[in-house]
């Protein structure tokens, strides 16, 4: 068990050291998310539509698109020079690779989101601070589901030549339940509804998070082997 956690820790450590040196992952995700939000700002007339109605959808579109870039990049690093093969040769259970990548993807996405949220608040002139706690829970659930499925599918598509295209094609349809859940919840939070009144949505999102992690644990062996 100790070794297992140590191996997961080593993968996360390696991803962080790489990112500290290159700063490519965070900066590209951040700039992309920012651009998505800006494009929407300029294409929507906020004096006609209510910001709290369109805002949640735009926010999550920005998170998902930027996150996809992050996932692609994160697995590209593993494929370069056959590093994934090196990982397959160490005496680790394959799920350590999954959990290591899942956690580091999750942390990088969360950092990007924490930078985007204040900008979103300013651009859309929405007060997020009064709902900050519940909002962070929703962001957590959504990001976890995205990373759980995204990490699995990016390891699946990393063997394909058309990786950049295949990942979103596989990922987005399966993410629909989670996206609906978090967008609804974010919208209702902005309308001042307390999180406790959305137990159904929380349940839906959390169950999909768990299902996707479970499916990943069961299939990662076969997916990583060519």
């Amino acid at each position, binding site marked *: 068990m100790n070794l297992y956690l140590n191996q997961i820790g080593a993968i996360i450590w390696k991803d962080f050291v790489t990112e500290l040196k290159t700063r490519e992952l965070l900066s590209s995700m951040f700039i992309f998310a920012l651009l998505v939000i800006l494009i929407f700002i300029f294409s929507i007339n906020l004096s006609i539509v209510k910001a709290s109605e369109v805002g949640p959808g735009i926010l999550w579109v920005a998170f998902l698109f930027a996150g996809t870039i992050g996932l692609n990049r994160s697995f590209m690093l593993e494929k370069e020079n056959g590093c994934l093969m090196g990982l397959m*040769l*160490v005496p680790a259970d394959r799920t350590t690779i999954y959990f290591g990548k899942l956690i580091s993807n999750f942390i990088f996405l969360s950092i990007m989101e924490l930078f985007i949220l204040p900008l979103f608040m300013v651009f859309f002139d929405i007060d997020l601070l009064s709902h900050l706690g519940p909002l962070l829970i929703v962001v957590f659930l959504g990001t976890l589901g995205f990373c759980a499925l995204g990490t699995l599918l990016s390891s699946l598509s990393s063997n394909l030549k058309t990786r950049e295209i295949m990942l979103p094609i596989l990922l987005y349809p399966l993410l629909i339940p989670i996206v609906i859940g978090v967008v609804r919840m974010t919208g209702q939070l902005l309308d001042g509804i307390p999180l406790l009144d959305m137990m159904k949505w929380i349940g839906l999102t959390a169950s999909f998070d768990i299902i996707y992690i479970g499916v990943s644990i069961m299939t990662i062996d076969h997916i990583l082997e060519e």
Partner: protein
Amino acid sequence: MGPSENAMEVRNLRKAFGVLRAIDGIDFDLKRGEFLTVFGPNGAGKTTLIKILSGLTQPSSGSAKVGGFDVAEGNPGMRKDIGVISHATALYADLTPLENLMFFARMHGLAQPEDQALKVIDEVGLTQRRNDRVRTFSRGMLQRLSIARAILHDPKILFLDEPFTGLDLHASNILREHLQRLHDRRRTILMTTHDISCGLEMCDKVALQVQGRFAFLENIGNVERDQFEAMYFDAVRDNQFIMETGAIG
């Protein structure tokens, strides 16, 4: 693994990629501490054989045991005992040699990752460059580092796929001495190479792989170098003819 047990037992091993039979029925045993060199023309399936034996690819049929483990089962215990040098370096380009090896040492669960990493870096003569990014390394330096990665955890069984590629005279001497030492310490080694003198020098057994089969497998004592060389060149020439014309051998 008991002392008398075979380190490798390969039985009627086959691997097909579509219609192409990359491994087409290979049988051999390798006792603990034995050194087998596999020669063969390009595309003979040497790399595929190593991939199957190290658990990276599943065989289509047949069986192989390495260190007592069935390779098809993918047991992590087997991977503890093996080290692999392959065509790909399996090194993270944005990390330094020290960081790379510390990472793999931690993945292997070694007690002193940093000390162990520094030790093998020293063995392959990269101490001066241990804190430079691997991305900036030359071909031979990468090869040295991937040797370091493979021997980091002092594996009982080594698979070396053309390990001398890109090494300068000094580095290949280091590698040769190191292999000799490993051989003396009864490590089991399977190496592929295109370099006849290098390959024949250290081994106990020689194989010639042609089109997915061992066309020849002998103890080194029974091998006449000139004869073997002639056979090897014939195999390479025939293979070239088949590759160019598509004729079935």
